[in-house]
């Protein structure tokens, strides 16, 4: 048997002890004796309270204790059968989490703990399945989205709480900036439990902390080269070659990213691209054709979803990035703050870690910042109920009705004895 509100058992126990003490603390009226000079005695309390060894009115005490026990048991809502865990652990596992940390956390979980693995979608799974599939490669996978995992957790939360007192939610993720979008805080409010955040490195960038070497090949004044010159060294720890010439370069070697960024000759119009780190660049741009996007990782899309930048792995272990974003040759489009940020994202090595979440955003994940409205909470909540509770409370109420009758009878008997 488990209890949905075991704390109320303690409350009932305390009330029972208080009742016993009250019965031991007898409010006894001493015997009355005629006293000729009684009028000269000072007035005062006639009853005397004494602590006795045997409780007075044991039947009344037993009835009161029974009422309290039934009331406490009913309020504590017993659920017959099943073992109720005090804490049920839930792991929100980012698919981009480093395998070492991932396996370590999985080993610490119990078989009955729940894992919600997510990337762009969330999957409810168990520990054994994840351990079995731990070798799955995530190279080139799209950035994970936490919103889907939270929604999945909110949907199973009530069922988890039926056999557990509380939930221990842990997020294991490299905490990419793309993990959280604008709707995530509102979704986070669906789960009131605090969330422990475990930051891990991305699978593809374990130990990669060096600066990238960027080499630009162009035929003269080039806006990309100017932006890169302004940016200086880029993070990523890999070699990056930005090819702005028409001549096709050789296939890049392992660890090298070749960025093929054709020179634009057409008139630019105002357009926008959205990068995989969640940022958007709005500027006069030209849509350049990309020959083949099948099997490639889309790094950026035009505003209508059309791939704008794609990555493709080579057999030699390198990476070829095709940039279909034409930049006006004249002007300072690439030298603005947004332009330089976009250029830096587009020439980032294929295996470079995405930008991380800032601390303020992480704080919003630890505890929900927005509270659910009562209506929303009621709509989401399906509270567990005890089928025994109404019967126990009803029995307590019936016995409570007998209490004044028994008390009156005892008082009558005591009066007759006097």
């Amino acid at each position: 048997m488990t209890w949905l509100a075991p704390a109320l058992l303690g409350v009932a126990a305390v009330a029972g002890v208080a009742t016993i003490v009250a019965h031991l603390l007898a409010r006894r009226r001493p015997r009355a004796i005629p006293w000729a000079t009684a009028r000269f005695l000072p007035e005062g309390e006639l009853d005397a309270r004494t602590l006795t060894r045997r409780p007075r009115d044991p039947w009344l005490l037993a009835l009161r204790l029974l009422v309290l026990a039934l009331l406490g048991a009913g309020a504590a809502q017993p659920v017959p059968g099943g073992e109720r865990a005090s804490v049920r652990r839930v792991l929100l596992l980012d698919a981009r989490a480093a395998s070492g940390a991932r396996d370590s956390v999985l080993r610490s979980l119990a078989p009955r703990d729940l894992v919600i693995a997510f990337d762009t979608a969330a999957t409810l799974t168990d520990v054994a399945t994840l351990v079995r599939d731990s070798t799955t490669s995530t190279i080139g996978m799209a950035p994970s989205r936490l919103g889907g995992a939270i929604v999945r957790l909110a949907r199973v939360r009530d069922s988890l709480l039926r056999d557990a007192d509380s939930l221990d939610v842990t997020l294991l993720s490299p905490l990419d900036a793309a993990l959280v979008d604008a709707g995530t805080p509102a979704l986070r409010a669906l789960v009131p439990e605090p969330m422990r955040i475990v930051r891990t490195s991305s699978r593809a960038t374990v130990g990669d902390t060096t600066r990238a070497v960027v080499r630009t090949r162009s035929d003269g004044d080039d806006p990309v080269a100017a932006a890169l010159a302004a940016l200086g060294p880029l993070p990523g720890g890999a070699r990056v070659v930005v090819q702005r010439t028409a001549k096709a370069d050789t296939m890049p070697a392992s660890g090298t990213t070749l960025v093929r960024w054709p020179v634009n000759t057409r008139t630019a119009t105002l357009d926008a691209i959205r990068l995989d780190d969640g940022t958007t660049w709005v500027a006069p741009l030209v849509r350049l054709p990309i020959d083949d996007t099948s099997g490639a990782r889309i790094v950026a899309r035009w505003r209508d979803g059309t791939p704008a930048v794609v990555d493709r792995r080579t057999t030699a272990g390198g990476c070829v990035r095709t940039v279909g974003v034409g930049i006006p040759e004249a002007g300072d489009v690439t030298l603005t703050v947004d332009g330089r940020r976009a250029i830096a994202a587009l020439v980032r090595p294929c295996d470079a870690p995405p930008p991380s979440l800032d601390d303020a955003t992480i704080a919003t994940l630890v505890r929900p910042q927005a509270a659910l409205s009562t209506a929303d909470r009621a709509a989401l909540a399906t509270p567990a109920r005890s089928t025994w509770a109404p019967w126990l409370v009803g029995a307590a109420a019936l016995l409570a009705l007998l209490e004044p009758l028994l008390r009156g009878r005892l008082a009558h008997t005591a009066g007759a004895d006097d």
Partner: protein
Amino acid sequence: MARRGDPASADEPRAAHDYGPLLDAVRGIRWRADRRPPHAVTGAHVARRTAPSMEVMEHRPYRQGDDPRRLDWKLLARTERAYVRLAPATSVSPTLLVVDASASMAAPPGGTRKWRAAKHVAIGVAAVAHAAGDPVGLALVHAHAPRRLAPRARGDVIRELARVLDALVPAGDAPCAPSLLPQGDVARIVLISDLLGDTDAMRTAAATLVAHGTELHVAHLVAAAERALDADAAIAVDPEDDTVRRPLRADVARRYADAFARFRDGERAAWQAIGARYLEVDDALDAASWVRRLAAARETGPAEART
């Protein structure tokens, strides 16, 4: 509640011969009248003032205004000098004993000792008065069996008083004030009470009584057990008013003793203020000594009256 006919306590004297030692002890006590008897009834009682009598004590020259009947005619005839005959006034003082037989006279803490002391004082006073030739009567104030015996001087009056007193168990809360109203043939009233009843009404009636020339003695019965509180935890209930209920604990003994002492001092002052002779009678002492003090009582001060 005990009523008339209830058996008295075992420690109480049940027969007049129990008063034998007391009667022996009070024999010879003379109780002079404090005031001139209202009626010139001759008797064995010695009055304070000299008055015409068969027993000549002295002569003095006749003065204008003297009753001519008091002239010693034989002396006038023999010596032609007018003298009047003077002699101690010998009159009777009909005495009424007003005995309070309310419940408080036999209730704890004094218990039956107080009632026994009251009876002995009453019998002792009656014996002294009777020995002086005064008629003695009894007004027994009792809620259920009040008795009134008119003052009489016959020989068995003491025995009858003892029988009436012994047959009664104090009970109820009958007022004593009606028994203190002026009565024509009573020259002296002795009130024997613990003054725990209708004290104010009693004093009002007694003031009228004294104003009419009646000699009033108040024997205030105080049990030795009443002076100091010595009882276990209990609720003290006034036997004459059960609405008075007070906790009886050792920690209130000091306050109780102070309140009771103030009460006694107040009663003494109040009774003396109306011209009564007040005597506080302790049940722990011999009743004969109290009778002697009462018979000798004059305008005594508080210290003398309380000893």
